[in-house]
């Protein structure tokens, strides 16, 4: 798929190089190498336990929070290794936003949820925060529903609204990359449609990596799809091509529903 933006998107914006990952002695990822292009949606699909979420969480080093882990190989974003000891993991996470499978709004107001990334970065200027809230909520297609209740608890929102709030929060500080870990798995179909539309809009600005179990969703909103199986990258291609004409037998079996 060709992107006609004025600035040239980099095809290897995120570059994963011979990456293996271990939980203790158990190896979860095996020698994965792939490039993720800028301002496109890349979907990770595969059966449960195939390592797609693990790989996603390595992109912003969320796995660091787990005990007894180690990795081999490297992940390079924008020509810089994320494991470079000079890089603070906090600043990496500021560049790489994340939306989780289960929406996790903080027990604060809608407003405070959205501006949280700015607050922790030390931004407390009201005008900037107000602008951010409006832009982010609009970006997450929640503005119309939430604009009159910004100071109500985020927990008063419905499930789909909460997930869009989490997306608004993730994009509030305008990260370069947005990671989405099965963002629609807990949502009803109508909310899912809204989030998918949102993903298509967001890719104009962000490089998106989405993990999904839903192959229709991958076809609907991703540009490229990677299929993982048992911790290995089996196939990576344009979404249309992968779903219509998979190169690997395993991919074909999976997408046609023979296993998974």
């Amino acid at each position, binding site marked *: 798929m060709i992107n006609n933006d004025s600035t040239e998107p980099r095809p290897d914006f995120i570059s994963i190089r011979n990456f293996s990952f271990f939980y203790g002695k158990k190896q979860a990822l095996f020698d994965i190498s792939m490039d993720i292009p800028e301002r496109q949606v890349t979907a990770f699909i595969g059966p449960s336990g195939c390592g797609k979420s693990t790989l996603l969480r390595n992109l*912003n080093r*969320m796995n*660091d*929070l787990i*005990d007894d882990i180690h990795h081999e190989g490297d992940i390079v974003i924008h020509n810089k290794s994320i494991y470079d*000891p*000079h890089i*603070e993991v*906090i*600043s990496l*996470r*500021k560049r790489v*936003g*994340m939306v*989780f499978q*289960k*929406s*996790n*709004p*903080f*027990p*604060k107001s809608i407003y405070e949820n959205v501006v*949280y*990334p700015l*607050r*922790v*970065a030390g931004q407390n200027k009201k005008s900037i925060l107000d602008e951010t809230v409006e832009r982010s909520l609009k970006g997450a297609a929640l503005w119309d529903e939430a604009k009159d209740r910004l100071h109500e*608890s985020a*927990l008063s929102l419905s499930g789909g609204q*909460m997930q869009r709030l*989490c997306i608004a*929060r*993730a994009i509030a*500080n305008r990260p370069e990359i947005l990671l989405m870990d099965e963002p629609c798995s807990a949502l009803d179909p109508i909310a899912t449609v809204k989030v998918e539309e949102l993903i298509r809009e967001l890719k104009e600005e962000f490089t998106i990596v989405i993990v999904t179990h839903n192959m229709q969703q991958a076809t609907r909103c991703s540009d490229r799809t990677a299929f993982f199986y048992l911790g290995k990258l089996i196939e990576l291609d344009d979404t249309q091509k992968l779903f219509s004409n998979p190169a690997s037998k395993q991919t074909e079996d999976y997408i046609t529903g023979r296993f998974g």
Partner: protein
Amino acid sequence: MPEKLPEHATGKNRFQTAPATLFMDRFMTLVIKAGGALVITSVLGIFFFIFFQIWPLFAPASVTAAKSIQLPDNHYSIIGIDEWGSLPFLMEPDGKLLTADFETGKIQEIPIDFAETPQPRFTAATLNKREQEIMLGTNDGRFFLVSPNFSSSESDGRQLITINPRAASPESIGIPTQPILSIAYGDSGTQKLVVAIQPDGEGRRISASLYKRKRSLLGAGKTSLEATFDLTSLISGTPTRILVPGTADSLIVTTSDGRVHFLVLGGDNNGFSVIQTFAPFDHLENPSIAAATFLFGDVSIIFGSESGENCIFSLYYPEGGDKRLYGLTHEFAELGATPHFIASTLRNKAFLIGGGNKLSLRYSTTDSIRWQQSLPFNPVNAVISGKYQRMAILDSSNKLHFFEIHDPHADSGWNALFGKVWYEGVSSPKWEWQSTGGSDDFEPKYSLIPLIFGTFKGTLYAMIFAVPIALLAALYTSQFLDPGSRSMIKPVMEIMASLPSVVLGFLAAIYIAPLIENEVPSLLLVAAGLPVIAASTGFVWSHLPIQFRKFIPAGREWIVFLPILFASGYVLWGLGPAFEAIAFSVTDPTSRERIGDFPAWWPAATGTTYDQRNSLVVGFMMGFAVIPIIFTITEDALSNVPKSLRIGSMACGASRWQTALRIVLPTASAGIFSALMIGLGRAVGETMIVVMATGNTPIMEWNIFSGMRTLSANIAVELPEAPHHSTLYRTLFLGAMVLFLLTFAVNTVAEVLRQRLREKFKTV
């Protein structure tokens, strides 16, 4: 066609529940219900039990009419009673005693042998209740001392009281030929002071005689006249009444214009001098004094005015004064009639005041009216038995009425327990707790306020010490420490929570208190220095380049911190004496050198006391008891914050500290609040540590270097000294009730706040 299914898969009874299951279900429901009801019933039962134990403290006196005996028509000058209250005696003008037996109603006239013919004529009489002696003044300036000589014997299982009055040989006083109008005396055992008023031409003369008793090894020695005094010139106005206290070294003269003169023996001329003149009813239209008598203890005087006002003046050192003077200490409601008499008891600070048809039983210390009634007769004189159980009242038609008093807690009530009370001998009303004293006329002081204060003080110092440490430790353990170390710390802290408080108290009293006593400056340095050093170490660490930091995995920073903290703690402790020499130096009274001595410096600098067993020790040790509780519950609350929130915060680029502070703490606030409240409850109710480490002084000052007494410690300390159903016994129950209500209130408020916090910070 499906294959044939077995019977159990098709039979009707596959839809049935086993009877045993149903029975168990119903039975357990019942057991649980019964258990719940039992718990509520027992809590209520305890509550009601305590309530009924403390109720009599607030109950008024119960006074019931028992019997009336008509006496022969006569003028009875004094009325007295034996200590059992069954044989009152009255003095007839011709020198005979009339007794009226309470049990039998028998009236008996008992002559007294004055060994003189003709029988002397008596013009004045006074009864000394404390000595149980009657003094009779004659018309020719002499006085006889008569002892009623009660004796008690048992006959037919009944107590039989007999009286056998004996008169001592007469002594002269004042002008030999003049009749004695009024006489009073006091006897301290070593000296006796007799004072009499006689007419002298137009005016009246006041004479005093001082007798000294020389004690010998063979018993009470001879009493001999030491000196006589003519006090007339010292008193301006017409003297009407004399009161002499049991100390026999001073006297009170009231005059017809309502003034009171306080004369004291001694000084340079070895005579009497007027120390003070005051008029208790100066503010009234008619300031004259209708009745006056000493309260039990002879330190306070009860006055009644013509218009029925009633007040008490007591001896005390006025603020800044060096002499004990009389001052107004208690005021009572008007009687509603001119008081005819005031009768005090020998048991407590109660007194009976009567006039018109009114009779009122009052308690001086607590300013309270125990009992008051309008009677169908007019009382003119009365006496209360020595045990404060019965009173005999003579009315204007010479009928003697007996009343039974049931007032076991006369000295109690709201005022005594919670109000400021003006006890005898002190210069202002105070909240005071002192349940026992050395002498019989000691008045127990039962104010719970110092104990409530002590409870708050102990709790406050314990919480000041425990809360920051416990909360920060829990925050660090749950949010920053690596899981390996965390799994060690938690059980260790829980073991600490199970340490018996008696062990902590023992340690505090035997080891910590003496240690702290001499090392306060070191302690202060460590307490002030360690947080600063910890914070700056953390600051430096977080600003170190990542190359240095990467050697210590996140969560194991304590490997660097602990040695630094221990080393600096050791150094700071060692610097203590030097710090003491600089900051807390006093001049040594013997060597005149400046030396560092904190225990001496503190009282000199602040004017407060420095005790070895002080609030610092208690705060420290009780903190130790409270820290594990707060820590464990807080740690649980923090760890129970959904991981998704922490991860969500981290994913937003927040640091561990930002996540802990902005997300984890607010979300866990309800649990943390519970932890604080449970810790507070523990501190409030903690007993053994306080008993052993505070000195148990019921004082009211926030000074950290003085002790305290808490409600719980008070119960533990006083319990062995509280006789069953005594005022102290019931007051201890009241202390328990206050403690119960205190914790109940704290818990209720805490629960309401906790629910609100939980509502506010509930998660998905």
